């Protein structure tokens, strides 16, 4: 009966109302059901690299600022000549000397 006193325009309006409502409901349900994400995923590697760069920059700045007086006293060159160090012998000769000693002990 009620439909009878509805003209075609009203039906149209009603229909679009309903679909609007439905879209809203859908949107809400979507928003609720989707896991909450804080923005997009960040590329961690990139971030770390960026951090490194920053630290490096800091470090370089620090390094550049090291000045200080250049009057560190250095030791004098020794005037005496160094004693001659025996040339390093190879193991064979050491072994040989051991045997020589042993053979001499057996005298």
């Amino acid at each position, binding site marked *: 009966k009620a439909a009878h006193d509805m003209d075609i325009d009203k039906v149209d309006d009603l229909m679009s109302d309903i679909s609007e409502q439905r879209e809203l409901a859908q949107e809400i349900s979507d928003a609720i059901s989707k896991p909450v994400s804080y923005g997009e995923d960040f590329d961690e590697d990139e971030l770390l690299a960026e951090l490194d760069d920053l630290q490096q920059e800091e470090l370089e700045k620090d390094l550049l600022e090291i000045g200080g007086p250049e009057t560190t006293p250095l030791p004098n060159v020794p005037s005496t000549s160094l004693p001659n160090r025996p040339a390093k012998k190879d*193991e*064979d000769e050491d*072994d*040989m000397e*051991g*045997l*020589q000693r*042993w*053979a*001499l*002990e*057996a*005298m």
Partner: protein
Amino acid sequence: MAHWFHKNPLKATAPVSFNYYGVAGSPAANKICNDLRTTRARLLDMFTDITCTPEVMKNATDAYFSLLQCFIVSPDGSTQDNKMRFIQNFRWTDTLQGNTPSAQQDMVFELVSMAFNVALWYTKFASRLAGKENITEPEAKDVHRSLKVAAGIFMNLKEMHIPRLITPAEKGRDLEPRVMDTYIIQCQAEAQEVTIARAIELKHKATLIAALAYETANFYQKADHTLNTLEPECSSKWRKYLQLKQHFYMAYAYCYHGQTLLAGDKCGEAIRSLQEAEKCYARAESLCKEYRQTKGPGTTAKPSEQLFFIKLGGLIKNTLEKCQRENGFIYFHKVPAEPPTLELKASYGLAEPVPFELPPLREQCTPEVYATFDLTKGAKNDKAKPKDEEVKPMKEPDLKPQKDTGCSIS
């Protein structure tokens, strides 16, 4: 590692009484003669006494030689011959001539023959000790020293005393140069064997061990060549021994040289070196057999069954397999046709003979006493001169090498 050394028999001699009816014209002169008799008899006993040590031997030797010099050196220090030098006939057998003695009426002949026997005793003492199952480090030193002492005695006789003989030794007798030289070199080679055993024990470098082994092999080869103009029947057994030792130590040298090559990533050459070691070892093994089957002076032994021998065989086999494995996995080297050349190191002095000196003249041999010996008395009309006694061979203590358990010399 117990060693095995071939040893020729000791020399034997007839007893000497030093009785000079009437010539010794004073109690002091008589005493010298008596003392000569007793000290000589005692020294001869020592040769076959199993408990005799080098110290006891040295005392017995000095006691006799300091007296014997009374009849050799000139009492007034001149170069003139001692008047007593030719009064007594001495008979000695020779190491290579069985029981056929040679005789000379000369105190110097007695001196060199007896001293020769003392040197032989030192070599026998050394090989008895070296054959022990569990030889200690001090004992190894004793072996080494005794061999060098023996070499020193042989050398001193050859250079100083044998040239003084009026009658040179016949061929094949102990006092002829070739036999003397062989004894000297053999002593040095055997002493060096002890040194090699020690170097292995102390895990010395392979290059050094290879060089020492190579030199020892050369000693043996030289000793063998020195004998090659002697009659085979008296020298061939001895020569077999010298040859087997030569090949044995060549095998040692190639074996250790191969280890050096492998360590230097020269795997192909290492394999070749080990193959050469195998060849020498096989040759040594067949020489062991020939040695056993050769008749001649010396002890009979089966060296190829001795531990020192078997041990090297295992070492060569393992080292060769290792080289071949590594070559199949890692190196892929070609194996050269020619064996590598071995190098010598100057190991001068490892087996230097210990210089030998005769003891000084006994105090009781004064010129006054010497003057009381009167050669015009007695001696001439000696109908009473006893017939030369027979020379009995020395009863030597048994020197059978023991089967050893593999304890080594250090």
